């Protein structure tokens, strides 16, 4: 009797401490979960807060006098003359007219920096489209220089020390005048989605990289989906249980965990050096990413084949179907939604992958938007990497903008996978 009382007392004595430990333990758990969630939010906040400004761009309105004396003094109007004309001087004259009091080479150069270096090409295009412009005076909106753009977006402020600020006080004053006259404004940045890469931040866009990613993914999808489904079908439905198939299985599981950069080394040594395929091409990128995503697709496809109940197979075989007919007519259609889901998830991972693409030379500086799978190109994540390395401050917002585009694509793909799973996947 007295012993029992003692035990109860002991338990009683320790109870407070144990409850406190219980409480602490739970608190650790909550802290860990909230830490994870905070990381997610912080990551998104830091990308979006840096990047949302890249969807707007500053333009300056210039009053351009299409001077016949400069463009086409002979009045021949032939295309070569129009192409080779000195449009730069038109831009400069127009700027000088706006600020007639500016003198001296250094000051003038500062003044010219207000507009982007592609303004003359704008004018060239206009004149070549419509030679009737010659001799007239037109108001033309051209891209502002990247530093002006940064100032307009508040990334460069007047409070900064003049010596470290990319724009000097005089330039700020000019911008102020432009603002007063209402000839400088921010607009939606369509060029960001239509241009290729550029050394000038204000002209750089993601179209080239997005096309490169698109071609790469097409190659990956066309190769990895059939091969992945075929291997899954073989391993799940046909393969005899023996050493050979065990070896294949162990191989697939291991490949799923091999670092992606090793696949890049493989691509470099085999596809480029041995087979002599072109460097920097989406074709090679697609091949490498195929090898990388195959394990993901095979594993997902096998899981969805496994989920098809054996009774379906037995019923088909019982009706006299051959093994191949049973698989092709009954098992595959039922397993297809799961396989597609797995493939989309694999594609999403391939879209975000950059390390193997660095190895096969898809990091070149490429201005043109690629048109075929053998054209040199980059991919979206590699473009992000390249821009993140650029010293100009304006590239920070471009990088974040490109990240937002990439994340949007990933979101769409994963969303599609979720919808596919919820709508079509049957559970038995």
């Amino acid at each position: 009797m007295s012993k029992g009382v003692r035990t109860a007392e002991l338990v009683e004595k320790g109870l407070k401490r144990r409850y406190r430990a219980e409480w602490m333990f739970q608190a650790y758990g909550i802290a860990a979960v909230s830490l994870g969630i905070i990381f997610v939010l912080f990551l998104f906040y830091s990308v979006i807060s840096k990047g949302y400004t890249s969807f707007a761009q500053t333009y300056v309105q210039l009053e351009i006098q299409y001077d016949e004396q400069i463009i086409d003094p002979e009045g021949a109007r032939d295309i070569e003359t129009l192409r080779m004309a000195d449009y730069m001087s038109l831009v400069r004259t127009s700027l000088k007219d706006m600020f007639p009091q500016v003198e001296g080479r250094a000051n003038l150069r500062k003044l010219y920096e207000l507009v982007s270096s592609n303004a003359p090409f704008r004018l060239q295009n206009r004149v070549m489209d419509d030679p009737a412009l010659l001799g007239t005076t037109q108001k033309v909106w051209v891209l502002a220089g990247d530093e002006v753009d940064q100032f307009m977006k508040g990334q460069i402020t007047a409070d900064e020390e003049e010596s470290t600020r990319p724009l000097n006080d005089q330039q700020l004053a000019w911008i102020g005048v432009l603002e007063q006259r209402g000839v400088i404004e921010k607009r939606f940045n369509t060029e960001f989605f239509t241009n290729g890469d550029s050394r000038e931040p204000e002209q750089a866009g993601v179209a080239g990289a997005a096309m490169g990613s698109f071609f790469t993914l097409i190659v990956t999808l066309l190769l990895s989906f059939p091969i992945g489904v075929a291997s899954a079908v073989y391993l799940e439905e046909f393969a005899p249980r023996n050493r050979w198939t065990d070896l294949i299985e162990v191989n697939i599981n291991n490949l799923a965990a091999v670092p992606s950069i090793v696949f890049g080394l493989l691509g470099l040594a085999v596809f480029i050096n041995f087979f002599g395929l072109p460097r920097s091409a989406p074709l090679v990128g697609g091949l490498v990413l195929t090898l990388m995503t195959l394990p993901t697709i095979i594993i997902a496809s096998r899981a969805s084949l496994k989920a098809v109940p054996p009774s379906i197979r037995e019923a088909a075989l019982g009706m006299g179907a051959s093994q191949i007919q049973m698989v092709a007519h009954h098992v595959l259609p039922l397993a297809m939604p799961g396989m597609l889901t797995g493939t989309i998830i694999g594609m999403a991972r391939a879209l975000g992958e950059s390390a193997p693409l660095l190895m096969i030379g898809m990091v070149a500086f490429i201005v043109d938007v690629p048109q075929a799978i053998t054209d040199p190109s980059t991919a979206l994540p590699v473009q992000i990497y390249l821009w993140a390395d650029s010293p100009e401050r304006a590239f920070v917002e471009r990088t974040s903008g490109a990240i937002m585009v990439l994340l949007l694509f990933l979101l769409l793909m994963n969303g599609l996978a979720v919808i596919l799973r919820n709508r079509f996947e049957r559970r038995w």
Partner: protein
Amino acid sequence: MSTSTLILILLLLAAAAYRFGRKRSFAVVGGPRAQRKLHSLPAYYGLLTALWCGLPALVLVGLWQLSHDTVISHLVIENLPQQVGTLSESERSLLFNDVHNVVLGNVAVEQVTPAAAAAAAEYQRLDGIAQAALAVVALSFALIGGLFVWRRISPVLRARNRVEGIIEALLLGCSTVAIFTTIGIVLSVLFEAMRFFHSVPIHEFIFGTQWSPQTAIRADQVGSSGSFGAVPLFTGTLMISGIAMMVAVPVGLFSAIYLAEYAHPRFRSTAKPFLEVLAGIPTVVYGFFAALTMGPLLRNFGESIGLDVASESALAAGLVMGIMIIPFVSSLADDMITAVPQAMRDGSYALGGTHSETIRKVVLPAALPGIVGGVLLAISRAIGETMIVVMAAGLSANLTANPLEAVTTVTVQIVTLLVGDQEFDSPKTLAAFALGLMLFLVTLALNVLALHIVRKYREQYE
């Protein structure tokens, strides 16, 4: 004839073969009404004819596409004037670079040396002959194959079984891609690594403490030989991965425990996908985050408490890598914890254990092997991670134990050695493959071990 037209013609031929085969199967039994006399459905006769017609020819075209450059280059070398034979290896590769550029139209003929121009002309001549020959051979393959089967079609031909045999062989072929990939990886890194170990002894590579792969252009420059001691890279990799695991393991494990054991199902079903978002974000985004947000943040914080933090510190890269790995650890640990049978928990409650005591003393020990396996997989992830460290860790190889300094890793060095122009016989580029070999072996060992542990554990309760 260009390759794409050839392939198109072959596909059309195969489609025609399908129709002819199918028609023939009706003809041999005397019309569609007598279809029952055939061994297989008519479509199988068509399919068999199409496969025999298209498959060998397409395989031939594919093989030639892969090898034509090597073969023709070889022929050009043999046919060219004698002086080409006496060129050194590097001169010859230079010449062939020119030849390729001319052939692809990147460079005009006038811009290269006469020897290269002649070689290019020879190359184009041979390539033209080969293309024509290929077209003839492939088309005759297709016709002969198709005709062969077409003539043999009879009511007793077991067309379905033959077609299924071919399909099954194709399926088997696809499933061996995984094996060929592994072989390809091993061979490609092994060969180049062997060449590297010819010029740099393997013990110097593994135990040396000096890493400066920049070989000098002139022989009399300082450090002309370059030194390839990889120890600083290994320690750098270990340090960054270690920091990452210090973040990922506690956070991942505790969130898994909380979500699996304590959380309300509704909270769990929202919080879990939220954490898994972290796994879906591309690594280049983490790299950007580490370099532009975490790095400056840590440096400013260090300044404010009087510490000297490098802007490319191991700490920044490690922390961000840890964040990336959290969902990896947490979802694996979650699986393992939920796999522990409820009966074990009930037993502990019945003895008066609190919830946390049950978790610590019953659930976790039972789930431990699985969790260890998951952590090993996570370590192999961290070691092989590239973009974060390329963007946020340093380039110079420091042998240091201070996480506030910049260190470099194996993957960073592979990238810096191989990106940009490269010659394939300098130890500098070959070193990248030696590092790749080390990386592959270490991660392979970790994966095999982890998969073994996880599988063994899963079997216990299932």
